């Protein structure tokens, strides 16, 4: 390794995107440096240009729609922007490698793990055959894949999300790069696995003496991982400095806003005397596994297995758990969007036997807000149409003026200007869309609202706003919430009582102060440690 003072220097980098006549300046005059063995974090909200800056280093942007009107990227004294394609290929995956956010789609589903990793070795080092296999095994062991030998022949779909991300890291490390670019490496993972992956990255970085460019929106990760931080906002770096300085003495308004925007506040105290809105008793959702020629049922996937829920007026029940724990299935079963066994009682009436016609009048009382504000609004309908759709079905008799007024009122309640109702969803940001989705549910004046990860697709600062909005709406309308989330910080800010799910079963249930203060089971303890401290717990308590 050379003893050059800096490994990578990005100097006044600009990136433009052209779509038709319109030119978007995605990145403006961004400069930063990374030394050997150092970790630099690029922090910012979505759309701030952090990913685009990182992709420019390896020139992975969609050229020619993207262009670099100015700037320089010097890697070991060589300007990467001026490098011919052959030279670039030598750098990519060899000296600089990258891991992406989504482990589901960044591995080729048709290749085995061995082939994917060996490919990198073959291309850059010319290692093939037994030597390659030995190296792949070594790498898989290093990234903490158990039974590495058996895993060689596995395909990506046979691995869990965390394992896939480990494989991605093994691929990235195969040629011992000098710089690792990690683009939101843990955003798509569960909290417990996120903690494990971060731990692994730290350990490997020390072992290989790598530099790391970490792109994230999560300040908790930055605090744990980075030496230096660059805060990006609207394509510019607004503040830079050593991590501790940034967190302790933020100078820029935006940085301060970002640091202050973790969900705050606490839920109203639990009120045992409040009227029970919805109750389930031993609710089960079992999906049959069918085998053989006659499709006989040989077993069940127990997505939800004996869950008791009790949601009271003006109160919030938080449902937490990792992905695959049955949280969303539980929500959809309560709304009778999927079939289930066991009584569901709404205001003293059993609704689990109702058919879709009988359910229809109840739909206006039981509403749901989904996780992905990009997917939950029909792109071809205007905001007004989206919100009034439920009214047209549930209250067909009201006049069109009245309907307009209700739509306008719902938009005002979620903090949007009623004038936006003629516009289409794509013209709004994620947070605004989530507000629209909430308005769609609110316009029917529901009594019970299921919030299915309403904040996970949003930026941190927007998350806090949505949490505040939800708490405010609950207070005003005495709404009962079933709040589903994997994000314990958000749950703590909203829920009076908590239900921890794992593999469809309740692990722990109780008032939220009690659960947060004195978790009883190991699983809950691990979950809390991972969520609040980004710490891993001894093996066994959580999945890998």
């Amino acid at each position, binding site marked *: 390794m050379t003893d050059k003072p800096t490994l990578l220097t990005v100097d006044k980098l600009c990136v433009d*995107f052209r*779509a*038709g006549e319109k030119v*978007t300046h*995605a990145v403006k005059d961004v400069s930063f440096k990374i030394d050997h063995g150092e970790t630099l974090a690029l922090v910012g909200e*979505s*759309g*701030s*240009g*952090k*990913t*685009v800056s990182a*992709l420019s280093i390896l020139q992975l942007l969609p050229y*020619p*729609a993207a262009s670099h009107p100015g700037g320089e990227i010097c890697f070991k004294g060589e300007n990467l922007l001026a490098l011919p394609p052959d030279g670039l290929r030598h750098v990519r995956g060899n000296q600089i490698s990258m891991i992406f956010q989504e482990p589901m789609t960044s591995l080729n589903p048709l290749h085995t793990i061995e082939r994917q990793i060996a490919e990198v070795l073959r291309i850059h080092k010319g290692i093939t055959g037994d030597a390659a296999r030995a190296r792949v095994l070594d790498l898989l062991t290093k990234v903490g894949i158990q039974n590495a030998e058996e895993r060689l022949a596995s395909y990506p779909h046979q691995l869990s999300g965390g394992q896939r991300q480990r494989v991605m890291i093994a691929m990235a490390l195969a040629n011992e790069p000098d710089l690792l670019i990690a683009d939101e490496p843990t955003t798509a993972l569960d909290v417990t696995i996120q903690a494990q992956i971060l731990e692994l990255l730290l350990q490997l970085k020390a072992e290989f003496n790598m530099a790391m460019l970490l792109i994230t929106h999560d300040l908790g990760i930055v605090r744990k991982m980075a030496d230096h931080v660059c805060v990006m906002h609207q394509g510019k770096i607004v503040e830079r400095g050593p991590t501790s300085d940034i967190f302790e003495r933020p100078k820029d308004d935006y940085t301060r806003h970002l640091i202050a925007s973790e969900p705050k506040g606490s839920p109203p105290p639990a009120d045992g005397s409040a009227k029970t809105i919805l109750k389930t008793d031993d609710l089960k959702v079992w999906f049959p596994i069918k085998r053989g020629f006659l499709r006989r049922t040989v077993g069940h996937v127990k997505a939800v297995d004996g869950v008791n829920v009790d949601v009271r007026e003006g109160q919030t029940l938080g449902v937490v758990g990792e992905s695959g724990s049955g949280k969303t299935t539980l929500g*959809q079963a309560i*709304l009778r*969007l999927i079939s289930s066994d066991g009584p569901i009682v709404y205001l003293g009436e059993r609704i689990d036997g109702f058919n879709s016609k009988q*359910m*229809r*009048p109840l*739909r*206006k009382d*039981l*509403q*749901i807000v*989904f*996780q*992905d504000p990009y*997917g*939950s*609004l*029909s792109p*071809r*309908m*205007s905001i007004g149409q989206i919100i009034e*759709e*439920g009214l047209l*079905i*549930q209250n067909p008799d009201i006049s069109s003026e009245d309907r307009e007024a209700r739509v306008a009122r719902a938009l005002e309640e979620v903090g*949007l*200007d009623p*004038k*936006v109702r*003629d*516009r*289409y969803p794509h*013209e*709004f*940001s*994620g947070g*605004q869309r989530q507000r629209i*989705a909430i308005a*769609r549910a609110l316009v*029917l004046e529901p009594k019970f609202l299921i919030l299915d990860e309403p904040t996970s697709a949003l930026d941190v600062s927007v998350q806090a706003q949505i949490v505040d909005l939800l708490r405010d709406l609950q207070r005003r309308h005495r709404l009962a919430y079933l709040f589903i989330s994997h994000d314990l910080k958000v749950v703590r800010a909203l829920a009076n009582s908590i239900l921890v799910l794992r593999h469809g079963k309740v692990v722990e249930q109780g008032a939220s102060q009690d659960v947060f203060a004195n978790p009883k089971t190991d699983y809950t303890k691990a979950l809390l440690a991972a969520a609040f401290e980004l710490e891993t717990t001894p093996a066994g308590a959580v999945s890998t």
Partner: protein
Amino acid sequence: MDAPTDVSVTEEIAAAGIPQPRPWVSALNKRRWQTFKANKRGYWSLWIFLTLFILSLFAEFIANDKPIVVEYEGQYYWPIFKAYPETDFGGIFETEADYRDPVVQDLITENGGWMLWPPIRFSYNTQNKNPPMAFPVKPTWLLSDKDCELAVEKGFHPCDPSLEWNWLGTDDQGRDVVARIIYGFRISVLFGLVLTIFSTIIGVAAGAIQGYFGGWTDLLFQRFIEIWTSVPQLYLLIIVAAVIEPNFWILLGILLAFSWVALVGVVRAEFLRARNFEYVTAARALGLPNGKIIFKHLLPNAMVATLTFMPFILNGSITTLTSLDFLGFGLPPGSPSLGELLAQGKDNLQAPWLGLTAFFVIAIMLSLLIFVGEAVRDALDPRKTLT
């Protein structure tokens, strides 16, 4: 990758104060139209095709054996719309006047009357009774001196200024080829369009139902389609043609019975994908009935795939009709049809103008449609950006 977001839409609108009226075409459709126009070949093909098609819709005004308007003794007659007996013009027969007959023409013109003829004085079934040679007659401009000598020798119409022009000759029954291709083009395109529209409606409906409900509905329907598509169409047509004489609508019905499956797969796949979208679940949570969800939320998703396929289905429909006509199982004898002209070309190799004309007309028509189809496909492709 991070998508650039517009953070301050609400503020912008609030600043503007007034709600902006929605443009008539959405931004997306405007962009699609731009992409379509950017494909020059497809764009021009569309205009050429539309011009030809609209012209062919007025075939009666371009090629007809009746004048458009006749003035006779101060009165106007419209033979193109109404049949007048010869007696109206002072003739002797009570049947419809044959305006190509010199006797009738003399009757009309001798008292200062006049006739306005279409540019081509043959309809698709008009026989040229005064040909310069035996049928099929050469295109008039190809007649050589030797042909003219032979015409005089054999007692055909001599090559003098009174000889009627057949721009592309006649077929083996003495009917003008230009007139036949004008009418033939029209019937081909109309048949193709009607077949395409009906098979799209049925196909989309079937695909929608299968995709939306899934499960047993889907399973049974799919098996039915597999069996149905394995029924040999051509044999069925031959059997039907042996029992009843096929006309336009019977042919359409038989072909429709098989062509609707073309779109089912695409629409079904689109529905299977989209029915799990969150906005569809949201619509169910709002209590919307299935029909409303299909029409409002899911169909628009399938429209892109459907529109992309339509020009190609149209092409396929036209080709099917042409090939049936070529084999003789198509439209009833005497109908103007491109396939029948092709068959004549095959039977009369000594008259290459028949085969060549039919070939070029079909080739140009199908190519124009394919070019349009390609441009439509580009325009609806979300990944295609204007460069």
